[in-house]
């Protein structure tokens, strides 16, 4: 299929143009370990490939390197017939530096180039104009002025595309060769001086809003407000959607198993498939809601400002300003948070952020905390006579998670700094203009985030779910205590002894690898209670009567703060870092750390 390649600098409205050309049906190709995404869609009989926004053919980071490498390959490929360079009409100079480099690259490969002067509506709004014809003569390639947002000029461009693809000769006035770095910059400046619009006009609005949003006091208040909104959205507003998904899965499960009748097949479907794999589908709405909000923040231009505000305090711990939103999201669920880490510019800081996100107390830990706090602390106890002690304990657990994350990231930063200092990406951030986000690319991104998650996490979750189910189910009809899992629990009881815990807790901890909240139900089963999830107080009373020492209880709580007891997170880490070694290594690492902390607590208290 004949291919059209779409390139441009970040924030030039390229994705929107891509959407206007191809409609909403597109495929996204991801590459493990990097944030590079190639979107492929179809326009008439042509395949259109949207490359990530890039500042230059000279890459700074691993991500850019891969993006540039893919671009080189695509331009070289004989299927590629046309390279579309998208320019931001209001920022001609900056867009042209990259566009001219691409033009030189295309000419080396004998490929036709067309320039798109996007966002022409912004220029016209200032009452200004750009002489596209004269620019076309200077560039020696066709120039189309259009606005992907208002659709002005888009149909003309669409009509011209087949002809542009069909042209065989490549007329080109560019005399600069690839590698003549400074000449591209000079040429871009020269063209901008002749045809571009005045920068102070463009930047006036942006700077006016920034005076408020980056103000030390008002900007801080606005930041807190926006972050509170984000936190609310993933925590409470996604809840009805999650409940709905859960109910839907439950309904399908009961219908299907009811139809199958009792037996092993029904048990398998009910517990391993719907209970195990189905349980993680519950997170899909949350991931999509978070992607939507972050997408709005990013497309509106605020995300860059938030990163700027957070940069200094977080850099003390070896993190980037952009680590803040992933950290905040991690308190709802680590999976969307790990995906949100894609916006971090430095690959090293991105990795550190991803590896420490699981230490944030996510919502799956809440039932575990609720149970153990109820066991250990009487509900009428107060802290310093004012605060409810149970509430204070919850706060302490969240706080402990954050402190651990900052300690671990500081250590990771110290140990990796020397090796990577030269390759690390410094904090250089463009503050884009404020714009109203367009729903089309946003919707695409939201759908894609859900699909990506299912594709990546489902296989691993299925396997783990299958293993745990088999171990817990056989020998058939024996119950969890006498199952293979129960036997393993008895066998490895000495491991849990230093924690002051017996085999029942061990089995519950093993079961909770699927998801932390399983701990409550599994422990309930061990105590001969069904439906412990709905009766946490009842189970807490039983555990109290059974006798759980304070030290062991606190140790167990701290264990759950630190341990990476979540197969979906491991699967996501594996996909995002591109290395199983890192994901499983982290699982073991946090497991050992959590074990040591718990043993220490059991010993001291």
């Amino acid at each position: 299929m004949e291919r059209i390649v779409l390139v441009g600098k970040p924030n030039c409205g390229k994705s929107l143009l891509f959407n206007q050309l191809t409609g909403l049906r597109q495929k996204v190709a991801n590459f493990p370990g990097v944030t590079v995404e190639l979107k492929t869609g179809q326009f008439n009989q042509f395949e259109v490939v949207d490359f990530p926004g890039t500042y230059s053919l000279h890459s700074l980071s691993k991500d850019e390197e891969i993006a540039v490498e893919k671009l080189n390959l695509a331009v070289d490929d004989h299927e590629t017939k046309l390279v579309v360079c998208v320019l931001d009409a209001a920022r001609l100079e900056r867009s042209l530096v990259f566009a001219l480099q691409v033009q030189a690259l295309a000419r080396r490969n004998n490929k036709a180039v067309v320039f798109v002067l996007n966002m022409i509506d912004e220029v016209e709004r200032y009452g200004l104009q750009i002489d596209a014809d004269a620019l076309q003569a200077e560039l020696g390639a066709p120039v189309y002025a259009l606005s992907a947002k208002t659709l002005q000029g888009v149909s003309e461009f669409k009509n011209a595309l087949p002809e542009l693809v069909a042209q065989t000769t490549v007329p080109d006035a560019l005399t600069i060769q690839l590698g003549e770095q400074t000449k591209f910059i000079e040429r871009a400046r020269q063209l901008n001086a002749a045809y571009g619009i005045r920068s102070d006009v463009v930047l006036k609005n942006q700077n006016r809003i920034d005076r408020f949003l980056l103000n030390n006091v008002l900007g801080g208040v606005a930041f807190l407000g926006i972050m509170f909104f984000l936190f609310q959205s993933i925590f409470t507003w996604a809840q009805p959607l999650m409940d709905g998904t859960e109910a839907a899965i439950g309904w399908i499960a009961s219908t299907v198993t009811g139809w199958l009748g009792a037996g092993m097949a029904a048990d398998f479907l009910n517990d391993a498939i719907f209970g195990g794999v189905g349980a993680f589908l519950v997170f899909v709405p949350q991931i999509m809601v978070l992607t939507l909000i972050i997408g709005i923040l990013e497309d509106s231009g605020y995300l860059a400002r938030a990163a700027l505000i957070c940069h200094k305090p977080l850099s003390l711990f070896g993190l980037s300003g952009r680590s803040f939103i992933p950290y905040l999201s991690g308190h709802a669920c680590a999976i969307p948070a790990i995906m949100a880490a894609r916006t971090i510019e430095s690959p090293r800081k991105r990795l550190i952020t991803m590896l420490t996100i699981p230490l944030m107390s996510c919502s799956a830990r809440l039932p575990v905390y609720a149970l153990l706090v109820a066991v250990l602390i009487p509900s009428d106890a107060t802290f310093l006579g004012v605060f409810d002690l149970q509430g204070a304990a919850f706060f302490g657990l969240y706080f402990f998670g954050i402190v651990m994350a900052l300690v671990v990231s500081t250590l990771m930063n110290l140990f990796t700094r020397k090796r990577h200092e030269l390759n690390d990406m410094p904090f250089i951030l463009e503050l884009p203009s404020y714009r109203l986000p367009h729903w089309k690319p946003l919707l695409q991104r939201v759908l894609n985030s859900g699909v990506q998650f299912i594709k990546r996490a489902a296989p691993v979750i299925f396997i783990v779910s299958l293993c745990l189910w088999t171990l817990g189910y056989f020998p058939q009809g024996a119950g969890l205590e006498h199952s293979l899992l129960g036997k393993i629990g008895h066998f490895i009881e000495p491991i849990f002894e230093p924690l002051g815990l017996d085999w029942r807790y061990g089995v519950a901890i093993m079961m909770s690898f699927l998801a932390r909240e399983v701990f409550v139900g599994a422990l309930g089963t061990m105590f001969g209670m069904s439906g412990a999830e709905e009766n946490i107080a009842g189970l807490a009373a039983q555990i109290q009567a059974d006798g759980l020492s304070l030290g062991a209880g606190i140790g167990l709580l701290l264990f759950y703060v630190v341990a990476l007891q979540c197969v979906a997170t491991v699967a996501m880490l594996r996909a995002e870092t591109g290395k199983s070694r890192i994901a499983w290594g982290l699982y073991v690492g946090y497991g050992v750390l959590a074990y040591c902390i718990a043993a220490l607590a059991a010993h001291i208290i």
Partner: protein
Amino acid sequence: MKTLWDLAANQSAVVDTIDTQLTTSVISRLEEMGFSEGQCVLCIRRSPFKGPLVVQIGDCVYSLEQSVADKINLALAS
């Protein structure tokens, strides 16, 4: 020598050279962003506690942290 990091808010200056302590890829990126000799740069904002500063150069606004900004030398006259 005065560097970009020394620029106070609402002050403008002319870029001179970029310190070669930075890697060549970072230097070339900065040049592509407009930080090259003779270009006028305006400081829009300074953050408290030595946080990143915000500058306008050409048609863009950028935020740079200290480790980068203090490697961009300014010509004395502004």
